[in-house]
């Protein structure tokens, strides 16, 4: 039996809203199938299953906001025993705690299924409530009349309290560290070392009053745009605070690449035509594959290479905001395939239908502001990634080659890279590789 949980779709996401179930209990699903649509503060994302099997009861109702990691449903793997009994519609069979039942109470004491981390903590195998995925534990204290357990009690108990060791708490108080902003190295418990690491960071001195990594603590966002703004603010603040950026710039002659592209476009039906951005993405993917130190993540004080080259594409949304989903395994694609994937990605991004892997997996990001008319972009790295490539517009400039000056279409490419992981030497080699690929667009 496997849990289908609220995924983390980015370092700054700590909760998400279930928008829609795309499956029903009893459905057979395969690994990779889309099971549900989840609203992060950025966009609606289709969440895929990591398991193959039969969908059990759906534990969270659409419209409910739950913390990352909350079990949304269970999947019984093929061959495993199915759940003992057909699971009733959760709301209908709401069990009451014993005290409430014996008093024959009325009123709002029906327990409803809740998106509760507490379900995992319930140990008693005899509890019908837990079998049905209900978040009621014997430890829950009732605050209702006659100390009956109310829905609020369950909700209060099921909200996961951050797990912080007592020493880490004391240390945080002494060092003025906001615990909300501390990320545990083991992903579970904040310990003294995490607090020290956080305090030891470049901006340890004045603890930020509004912890940038915890947008939830900021004034409540009123619209989705506000929420996205807050999320971008948190991510970018963290990056600029923690990541020592260095920047390298190279102007690339695109005459060969564009001539090749125009040539290709003459033969291609309009829906398959290429745009310069596809050529650039293709070149960046190749260069990233050859420069593993720029393709991955800086986590827990060390670089972890990406498992493939997944190029994030910064896509601005109408109405404001920005999403950078990934073209997965971009280094294995031809220019034409890259173009097709780019179109598909932009279309789905703007329609709000991204897949979870695309949002959580970019290993390097490209931001192209050429269409907006700027010549160069010094971007902020999307931490924990370690590199970002900024692309400016294609302009005609005088260009000297072989002792002759002529007008050539050129673009300025800027690499922002994390100095903790690489030095300028590596970055320079990367930009040279991108340039080289753009001079030989015909190569697959």
């Amino acid at each position, binding site marked *: 039996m496997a849990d289908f949980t609220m995924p983390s779709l980015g370092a700054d996401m700590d909760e998400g809203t279930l928008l829609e179930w795309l499956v029903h209990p009893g459905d057979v699903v395969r690994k990779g199938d889309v099971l549900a649509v989840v609203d992060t503060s950025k966009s609606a994302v289709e969440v895929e299953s990591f398991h193959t099997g039969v969908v059990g009861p759906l534990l969270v109702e659409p419209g409910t906001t739950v913390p990352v990691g909350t079990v949304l449903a269970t999947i019984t793997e093929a061959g495993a025993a199915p759940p003992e009994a057909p699971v009733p519609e959760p709301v209908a069979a709401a069990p009451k705690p014993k005290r409430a039942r014996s008093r024959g109470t009325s009123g709002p004491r029906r327990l409803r299924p809740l998106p509760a981390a507490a379900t995992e903590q319930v140990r008693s195998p005899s509890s019908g409530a837990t079998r049905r995925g209900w978040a009621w534990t014997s430890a829950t204290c009732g605050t209702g009349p006659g100390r009956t357990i109310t829905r609020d009690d369950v909700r209060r108990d099921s909200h996961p309290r951050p797990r912080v060791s007592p020493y880490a708490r004391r240390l945080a108080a002494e060092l003025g560290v906001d615990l909300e902003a501390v990320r545990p190295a083991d992903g579970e418990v904040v310990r003294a070392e995490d607090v020290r690491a956080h305090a030891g960071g470049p901006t340890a001195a004045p603890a930020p009053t509004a912890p940038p990594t915890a947008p939830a603590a900021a004034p409540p966002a009123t619209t989705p745009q506000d929420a996205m703004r807050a999320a971008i603010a948190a991510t970018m603040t963290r990056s600029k605070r923690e990541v020592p950026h260095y920047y390298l710039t190279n102007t690339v002659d695109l005459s060969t690449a564009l001539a090749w592209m*125009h040539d290709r*476009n*003459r033969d291609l039906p*309009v*829906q398959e*035509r290429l*745009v*310069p*951005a596809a050529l650039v993405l293709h070149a960046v993917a190749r260069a990233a594959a050859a420069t593993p130190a720029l393709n991955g993540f800086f986590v827990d004080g060390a670089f972890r290479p990406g498992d493939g080259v997944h190029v994030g594409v910064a896509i601005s949304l*109408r*109405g404001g905001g920005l999403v950078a989903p990934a073209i997965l395994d971009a280094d294995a694609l031809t220019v034409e395939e890259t173009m097709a994937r*780019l*179109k598909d990605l*932009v279309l789905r991004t703007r329609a709000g239908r991204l897949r979870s892997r695309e949002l959580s997996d970019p290993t390097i990001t490209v931001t192209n502001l050429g*269409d*907006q008319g700027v010549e160069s972009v010094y971007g902020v790295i999307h931490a924990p990634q370690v590199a970002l490539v900024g692309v400016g517009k294609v302009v005609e400039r005088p260009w000297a080659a072989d002792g002759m000056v002529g007008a050539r279409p050129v673009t300025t490419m800027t690499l922002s890279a994390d100095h903790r992981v690489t030095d300028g030497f590596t970055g320079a080699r990367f930009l040279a590789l991108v340039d080289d690929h753009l001079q030989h667009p015909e190569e697959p």
Partner: protein
Amino acid sequence: MTPQDARRTVADALIEIVPDADVDAFPASAPLREELELDSLDFLTFVELLSSRARVRIDEMDYPRLATLDSSVAFLVEQTA
């Protein structure tokens, strides 16, 4: 294709790409890409939609003729004549 049909085709395509655009109030001679903030992919979609709906071939060299609402209408009328 009549100028009215052509205008409708162009306006529908733009609304599909930029759903909140007020195409009726849009100045007919304003540059589309700047005014509607179309990026290269949006513009390609625009070309795709015009090409398929008006059943005309649009090459890259024709793109400058799709710069404004008016010029796009004129292009479609001319190509479908």
